[in-house]
């Protein structure tokens, strides 16, 4: 009986404390509400509307029908029309398209003879899900062709799997994983950094010294930038040694992209640090930021498969841009100069969050 009373005493105290911790209370409702609605819609392994480019050397009625049929299948969205297959390769490398459709000048003859594929599908195979989706096109038949097909028939498309010919998922996962690991550790490090000083009482002393906001913020970030770069090296090393992940691009590009990404996450952490009152709240908020980063950045599910709204939200997350950068550089051998828009996005994110953190952090207690 007394045990029960004590149990209830604890229980009641817990509920009372919980009710007063508004952020935690918000999380109880916010996490399921936001995450379920967001990801229920966003996560879609049935990938459609892959961005595609067409190089049509035949330029006949049939070749145009082929392109139109591919579009009608909803597997691809033809967003670019170029002259040469080399241009398609460039677009693939830059990550602007996932699928290139090359229609050779002898397309008509090939169709008639049917001894070899009539056109070529150039697929960014670094993501096995995209590869699988794009392969659906091979089962396509042209509209004029109403005769039942024989199973032994030569397929319409020849497939060229770029960047991941062995179709290993580690190749695609490891570079993205670098971004995920950095997001988690970097945001958390700085998210607790200022809160911890506040909790331990250091902050009251510190804000009474001539230290300026910017000095405090940047001084807190720099050690973690170095830690982040060490993590990058470790992940690269393990990726190459254990999973034989190729590094097609230049090392300097990888580190530059990582540097900006690390900084963007650290400044995000600082913003959280100015919002949270306790280290526990800081951790919760970090998690709130981390979960969408994993799920809608394109790391786990192809970006093209998500609805527009989720894509817009994803554009706001640094991980989305970093996943594009790091896959482009590591897997497709893209140069940083070809991916500058992603770099600008990361830098803008960093400057904005740093600004917000500095505005929110007052050398005051009120």
């Amino acid at each position, binding site marked *: 009986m007394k045990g029960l009373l004590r149990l209830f005493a604890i229980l009641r105290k817990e509920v009372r404390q919980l009710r007063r911790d508004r952020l935690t209370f918000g999380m109880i409702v916010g996490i399921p509400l936001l995450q379920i609605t967001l990801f229920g819609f966003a996560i879609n392994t049935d990938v459609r509307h892959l961005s595609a480019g067409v190089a049509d050397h035949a330029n006949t009625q049939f070749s145009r029908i082929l392109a139109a049929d591919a579009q009608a299948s909803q597997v691809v969205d033809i967003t670019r029309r170029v002259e040469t297959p080399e241009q398609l390769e460039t677009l693939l490398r830059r990550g602007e398209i996932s699928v290139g459709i090359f229609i050779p000048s002898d397309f008509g003859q090939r169709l008639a003879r049917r001894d070899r594929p009539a056109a070529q599908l150039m697929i960014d195979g670094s993501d096995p899900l995209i590869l699988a989706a794009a392969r659906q096109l091979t089962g396509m038949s042209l509209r004029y062709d109403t005769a039942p097909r024989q199973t032994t028939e030569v397929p319409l498309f020849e497939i060229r799997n770029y960047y991941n010919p062995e179709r290993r998922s580690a190749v695609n996962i490891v570079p993205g994983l670098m971004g995920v690991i950095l997001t988690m550790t970097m945001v958390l490090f700085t998210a607790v950094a200022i809160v911890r000083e506040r909790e*331990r*009482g*250091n*902050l*009251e*002393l*510190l*804000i*009474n*010294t*001539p*230290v300026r906001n910017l000095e405090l913020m940047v001084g807190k970030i720099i050690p973690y930038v170095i830690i982040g770069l060490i993590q990058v090296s470790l992940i690269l090393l393990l990726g190459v040694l254990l999973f034989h992940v190729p590094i097609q691009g230049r090392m300097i590009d990888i580190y530059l992209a990582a540097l900006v990404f690390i900084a963007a996450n650290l400044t995000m952490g600082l913003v959280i640090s100015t919002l949270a009152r306790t280290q526990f709240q800081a951790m919760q908020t970090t998690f709130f930021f981390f979960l969408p980063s994993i799920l809608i950045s394109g790391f786990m599910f192809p970006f093209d498969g998500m609805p527009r709204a989720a894509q817009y939200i994803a554009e706001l997350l640094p991980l989305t841009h970093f996943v594009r950068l790091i896959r482009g550089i590591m897997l497709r051998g893209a140069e940083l100069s070809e991916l500058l828009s992603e770099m600008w996005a990361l830098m803008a994110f960093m400057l904005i969050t740093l600004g917000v953190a500095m505005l929110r952090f007052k*050398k*005051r*207690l*009120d």
Partner: protein
Amino acid sequence: MSGDYAITARGLTRRFGTVIAVDHVDLAISRATIYGFLGPNGSGKSTTIRMLCGLLTPSEGEAEVLGHRIPGEAEAIKRKIGYMTQRFSLYEDLTVRENLEFMADVYSLPRRSARQRIGQLLDKYNLADRERQRAGTLSGGQKQRLALAAVTVHEPELLFLDEPTSAVDPQSRRDFWESLFELCDKGTTILVSTHYMDEAERCHGLAILDRGRVVADGAPQELERRIDASVVEMETGDSRTVRRLLTDLPGVLSVTQLGMRLRVLLDRSVADPLALIRTGLIGQRLQFDARLTHPNLEDVFVAATQGRYLKAQA
């Protein structure tokens, strides 16, 4: 007006929601003196100190600290002041020396003079043999000496100490006050808050705070002289009964028990306090011995918080 004064304040007020933490406080604190804030917890001591160092924005009123207006020029005074918080606020996971080095760098002391200054401070505050010890493992007294060393590393003109001795033993308190007088002799102005009477007594000037208001201020001796009450000290065998009976008498402001003795504060308007007490206890067959005595600071405090205190003639 700031020439002779380190701090002046007029009508300084701070509200938190509907609570008035500090209520129209006026201050004039001379340079190179130790000035005390005496008051119970929640009387507004810390809030006033925080407003004066620019950590809190006053809701009303204005202050001038070392010739700078508060809160507008708060950043300008940071270099010239030191602020020792109520809670130990140095880094517990850094060593004694590392903490001092950090503070020296934050105040941009040049390397060479920083090293010299830190050596001085370690010697002066008896921390030389602890310099490699983590601050978190120090005793209460050592932590407090380290905190004082840390906030004086840049030799500030003005020191704010918020209940600096609340966590240390009496010997450490005495040593600590020795250090304060030493600093004061060298020209440092010190504003210290406390709830210990003996500490308040050591100050050159004093403000007694109660529920956000200054209820009395002046030098401690002057305050004792100006008290608007008479004090009777009594010895009795049954102090509890006597106390109960006296408390109900008209003109008695307070009765405080100190072991076997009672200290009775009476309104000045009572012409013969001893007679009043005797009359009050008549017929109770109680043994007691009563005599008039000089008021001390605690009496001043009790009287002042009950509004029984004569303001100095302006």
